[in-house]
């Protein structure tokens, strides 16, 4: 069954105070995932 976004979740999504901390968290997480390194896939030393 399709999930829905509840009213409570919506309030959470638009609450600037909570979202401020989310903002910090997202930035750090994105930095780690995207800028946190990349490499080849073809030889074992790379992976």
């Amino acid at each position, binding site marked *: 069954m399709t999930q829905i*976004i509840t009213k409570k979740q919506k309030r959470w*999504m*638009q609450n*600037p105070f909570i979202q401020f901390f989310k903002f910090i968290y997202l930035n750090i997480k*994105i930095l780690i995932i*995207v800028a946190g390194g990349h*490499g080849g*896939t*073809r030889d074992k030393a790379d992976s």
Partner: protein
Amino acid sequence: MAKIVVLGAGIAGHTAASELRRQLSKKHKVVVVSPNRNYQWVPSNIWVGIGKMKPKDIIFPLEPLYKRKGIEYVQAKAVSFHPEGDDTTQPYVNVEYVFGERKGEQEKVTYDYLINATGPKLAFDMTEGLKPGTNNAYSVCTYDHAQHASEALHALIEKAKTSEKKLKIVIGTGHPKATCQGAAFEYILNVEQELRHYGVRDKIDLKWLSNEPALGDFGMDGMVLSYNGKPMKSSEMVEMIFRDRGIDWVLEAGVNKVEEGLVHYENLKGEYKTEPFDFAMLIPAFSGHGFKAFDVDGNDVTPKLFKGFMVVDADYTSKPYEEWTVQDWPETYQNPSYPNIFAPGIAFAPPHSISKPRKSPNGTEIFPSPPRTGMPSGITAKLVADNIIDSIKAGHISLQHKGSLGNMGAACIASAGYGLMKGSGVSITTFPIVPDYKKYGETGGRNVKKTFGDIGLAGHWVKLALHYAFIYKAKMKPFWWLIPE
């Protein structure tokens, strides 16, 4: 002294040129050839397309910046490639000036290293009747397209205020193998918020029309992501958002023709259908630029350099979907025939799609082509620049820096509505971009710890922060290089 020529000044070309200039001494020459005198931060076109930003907010002129930084700029377009040179010169690219007194004139631009970062050709001509600004269909792929889209959207909003009849907006892909669904997804959510803002949401139906096999495929075969700490398919996440916003959808649609207010498409069942609209934004097919290449004797060697896009160190052997691996994807973006030529960003030819290929009973291929978003374009450009710098310093080709899309993460921060307090964003991170079904077999080819989704105001702030940070970086302001790609 080495001369490095960069074709294109988009995310990939500009990143490579700035990095080369920063790291190489002035005795080495960096030349950028690009027809558009402005740098544009393409991801913010979405906000130009709803009128929340003006083109001037997302562009700046390249020439003064390049002059200050010691990068030579040629406002021209590459026309043909001569990787062996001719009797009189070393390897060169034939370019044609597109502006000023020399407009139309051709010139040979010689190089020691060549970076082809010309991105895609926006191939509107591959879909009959799809031309931005005609037949009520628009595009947001460039800032001027986006500006026209915004004007037409607001005209429609005005019309809706007094119209008795319910109007309809269709947004999605305009070709059976179009890519960049992420941009269309952002646009539909921003348009939806704009309609609510002007109080006409109940007067306009919104429809998503896409070549994806499922919602949230995004040309990446979809993904299982962590949402609120629980695993969720991207299809479920997008469906949840569309239901919440009252957006209807049609999938597996290969658009083949656009007439005034009517889009024609074929679906995977082989049925030919139409969808009426009052305003549409359809992403065109992305193709190669149709460049030709010649050897020293003037023989056509185009297949050595191009397969639509540029041939690089990918495995292009044709094989069935079941046998595709991440190892097929390139790592250094170097052309195998001419080791001093590289193609980062969208300019390289992918070995195959990421989404599973699908055909209608009539033989029409209907599935998304692989997307190559901004962050990987920047990352691949930087690693190409780093390899060239190492090669110049070492006096021989060095390929220490590698970055396969099968071992690289991407963040898709989709704006879902503009506004410092009322805005919203859908943040999706994926690692790796190309699913590695061997390594992460249990979790749809992705590392679930690094693949997550989030919805809310914070996503909008992240997208805004990225807008300002990346424009700051592109302007090469103090310590710009500390901002990662």
